[in-house]
């Protein structure tokens, strides 16, 4: 039976990708079902882009365990799979004596959780390390293992590696129902029906709905939105560490951090939303701006180049929900923060649960664990000269803000998971990430979709299906 698999993974955000990556190490017939036209389209592409150290989650929880483990795994995965990653360290800053006490609590919790290198700093010590901090800062918890990462490249790299190692990726495939048929799960989609004894539910904000297709309702989805500012690279060195404020019941509060791409990222707030509502609001942005200035007063918000919002997959359960919901059906639900940090550990744990449920795993002998891509901008002068001589398409700069060349775009067109949209190209090679936000390179990339991929004008997408860039050519259909 063609449609029968050993394992089906639902969703290809960073959790689905990490699970698929883990599964692809074994001789299994596995597939990932993703409703979007690309991987990494949900919460994975809109978050703080931090690999947290792991002092924040309550000790003994899955969050604590998987965060610390995931954070350890991230460095190796990012190195092997060529994902931008930097261990820049974080500080949680305190403004009052009460908050200084909170820091001590975090220190203890972190140490119990197994976080290495934690230290409590005085206000002066903190400002010595990070001169941009407010003079109001009375102390800080310093976490040297905290890192920054490119979340969508992290997800893409793991998904690509899974595909290279034989995992099937079905895009534009939406699960509509799940039924039990004998010993198998029948996963019904808008495309076809697929069968497997084992299913991993990694559907992000919709994981609770997917759970409810296969098992009785247990938890309630309570999505929470966070809004952000992304600032120009001119502000990118405003802080080198990731700066947190003391956590409260809404989460870790507003942070200020450099990104691996050299920008400054500021956010998020935390607000209940009814659905996957990623709109920005004036109130939300104002809140973020005011809070961030408390940590680092000098941030120049007139250097903002983009706002965005992401929705956390929070539920009424305080911990991650990673459990066998029905025979062979593993939920990865409620993966809010620190979900990105924990991702590879969640993938690993999900596979452990599958094994406990009876999945037979045999290590693949020829598992491919490497990935490389050319970043023109990061090459030395000699390497640039050599590369352009070899392939002149690397000599044409398409995105002038980020110095991304035609060669890099054409190369990503030919990778195992090629982009189908302008934003898909952006997530792969960084075009349009800069200060003009695609004003100059958007037309050139649209042209490349037309010239190289043979798209019709009306097929060029900004991002998801339904995000057509153009209604047609001029001179038509007046």
């Amino acid at each position, binding site marked *: 039976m063609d449609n029968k698999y050993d394992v089906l993974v639902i969703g290809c955000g960073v959790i689905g990708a990490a699970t698929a990556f883990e599964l692809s190490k074994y001789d299994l017939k596995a597939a990932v079902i993703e409703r979007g036209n690309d991987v990494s389209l949900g919460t994975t592409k809109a978050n703080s882009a931090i690999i947290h150290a792991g002092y924040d989650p309550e000790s003994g929880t899955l969050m604590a365990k998987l965060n610390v483990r995931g954070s350890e795994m991230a460095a190796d995965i990012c190195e092997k799979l060529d994902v931008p990653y930097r261990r820049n360290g974080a500080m949680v800053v305190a403004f009052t004596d009460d908050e200084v006490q909170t820091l001590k609590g975090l220190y203890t919790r972190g140490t119990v959780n197994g976080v290495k290198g934690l230290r409590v700093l005085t206000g002066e010590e903190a400002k010595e390390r990070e001169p941009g901090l407010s003079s109001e800062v009375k102390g800080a918890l310093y976490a040297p293992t905290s890192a920054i990462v490119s979340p969508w490249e992290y997800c893409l790299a793991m998904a690509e590696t899974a595909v290279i190692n034989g995992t099937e990726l079905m895009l534009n495939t939406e699960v509509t129902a799940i039924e039990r048929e004998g010993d198998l799960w029948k996963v019904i989609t808008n495309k076809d029906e697929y069968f497997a004894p084992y299913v991993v539910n990694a559907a992000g904000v919709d994981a609770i709905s997917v759970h409810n297709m296969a098992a009785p309702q247990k938890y309630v989805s309570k999505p929470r939105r966070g809004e952000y500012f992304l600032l120009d690279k001119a502000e990118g060195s405003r802080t080198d560490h990731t700066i947190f404020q003391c956590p409260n019941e809404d989460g870790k509060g507003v942070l200020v951090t450099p990104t691996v791409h050299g920008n400054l990222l500021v956010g998020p707030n935390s607000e209940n939303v009814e659905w996957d509502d*990623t709109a*920005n609001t*004036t109130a939300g942005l104002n809140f973020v701006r005011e809070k961030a200035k408390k940590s680092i007063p000098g941030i120049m918000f007139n250097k903002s180049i983009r706002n965005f919002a992401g929705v956390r997959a929070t539920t009424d359960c305080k911990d991650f929900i990673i459990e066998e919901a029905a025979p062979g059906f593993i939920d990865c639900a409620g993966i809010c923060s620190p979900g990105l940090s924990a991702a590879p550990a969640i993938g690993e744990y999900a596979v452990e649960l599958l094994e406990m449920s009876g999945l037979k795993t045999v290590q693949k002998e020829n598992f491919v664990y490497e990935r490389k891509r050319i970043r023109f901008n990061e090459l030395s002068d000699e390497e640039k000269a050599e590369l*352009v001589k070899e392939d002149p398409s690397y*000599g*044409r700069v398409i995105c002038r803000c980020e110095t991304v060349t035609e060669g890099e775009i054409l190369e990503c067109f030919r990778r195992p998971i090629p982009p189908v949209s302008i934003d898909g190209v952006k997530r792969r090679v960084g075009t349009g990430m800069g200060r003009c*936000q695609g*004003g100059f390179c*958007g037309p050139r990339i649209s042209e490349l979709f037309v010239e190289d991929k043979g798209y019709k*004008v009306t097929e060029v997408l900004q991002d998801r299906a339904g995000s057509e860039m153009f209604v047609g050519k001029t001179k038509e259909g007046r």
Partner: protein
Amino acid sequence: MYDVIVIGGGPAGMAAACAAHDSGLRNILIVERDVELGGILNQCIHNGFGLGYFKEQLTGPEYAHRFIERVERKGIQIMLDTMVLDLSSEEAEGGKGPSKKIVTVVGKETGFRKLEAKSVILAMGCRERTRGAINTPGMRPAGVLTAGAAQRYVNVDGYMPGKRVVILGSGDIGLIMARRMTLEGAKVLACVEVMPFCGGLARNVVQCLDDFGIPLYLSHTVTDIKGKDRIQQVVVSKVDDKMRPIPGTEMYFDCDTLLLSVGLIPENELSLKAGIKVDPKSNGTVVHENMETTVEGFFACGNVAHVHDLVDNVTREAEKAGKAAAEYVLSNYYTLWLQNQICDGCGTSTYFRKKGDIVKFLPPSPDGAAFKMGKNEVICTVCPNGCHLKVDVEHDYKVTGNGCPKGKAYGKAEFTNPTRVVTSTVKLKAAGENEALDTRIPVKTSNPIPKTKIMDLMKLVDEIELTERPEIGTVLIRDVLGLDSNLIVTKG
């Protein structure tokens, strides 16, 4: 070693290179990232350029063409499809004499090279402010784009971004695109400006909005954008005198496109690499009166120095920069520069722009009126001055308020037979099957035609299909619609 390398082959770069040549330099190079010279003028197919410099109305490509011819005639070297990656200078040997400037370039044909020059003229132009810079709330669907990007899509690629359009900001490109989208069959629902006055030139409000009945909402802004994948609606609210939206004043526009025309920012990231001082507020290059920057031997002109309303002024400024670069190279200008620098504190050299003067929101008329014209009043669109004319309809259309005789004729015509020069594009078929590869060639009417005939003309224009690239000036339709005007090609 080049005498001068000009970075950017738009109007500023070309005029600067020509002026440097006229002042005696011979080894001149223009580095241009696009595959042709002309810069942003190539997509500005409307007319109104050149009135100051050439004393006639030209379209953008025609204005560019005149300079492209000059550049070629003078034997100025050109490197097309080539991007400058880095800019630096090395001290001269022994610390004496002018520094050596190093320009790192890359291009498909050019390869990766480090070029050397005695002087450099920066003419990189500007970029548009984006949604992220003004923090417009709402969803982030497709169909929200800057007016300049839309201009390229429509005029060069022939891609139509949408059919129901709202424009945020009343900058000139936004106004121009209101007309362009309308001529191409879209419905422009509104132009929304947060300030109590219009950002663009008066003539553009008259010719691009009023002519087509497009409302301009001053003191309004977009307060929400709806639509998850493609934009479906924008919410527009009135703002108070502190530019805060007033609840209860919301208007809802169902649209598939939101164009942003909210200002321009000089593109000076390269200048910073050479250690050149850039005004933190305006992002314009800080220049001396001769257009020399704060680093010896580097000059700046055009929109990289500050954003201009008119290309004619860019050209004049660029000529100044070209001349100064030639003087720097030919005379022992190094010393002069030092003297100039010494005088920095006593006012010899000045910041080109006042602090905080980021985007020019000039009122359209001395009284700041928002084009609420009285009966029998019109704004003259013959030149960018935008004189407010009063026309006495009962006494042979006697015109007052005009600054020149042309205004007199214009005022009368507006009340008897208003006419306009129409600019658009025609289809140029590409070889092969994929229609997406067809491009567009800009055209204009050689004479103004009656306003009432504009849409009839557009129907004819839309039917034209060229299979070969025509010469500039080629007549496509003679005496079009019997209106004593030819439809001619405006780009070579």
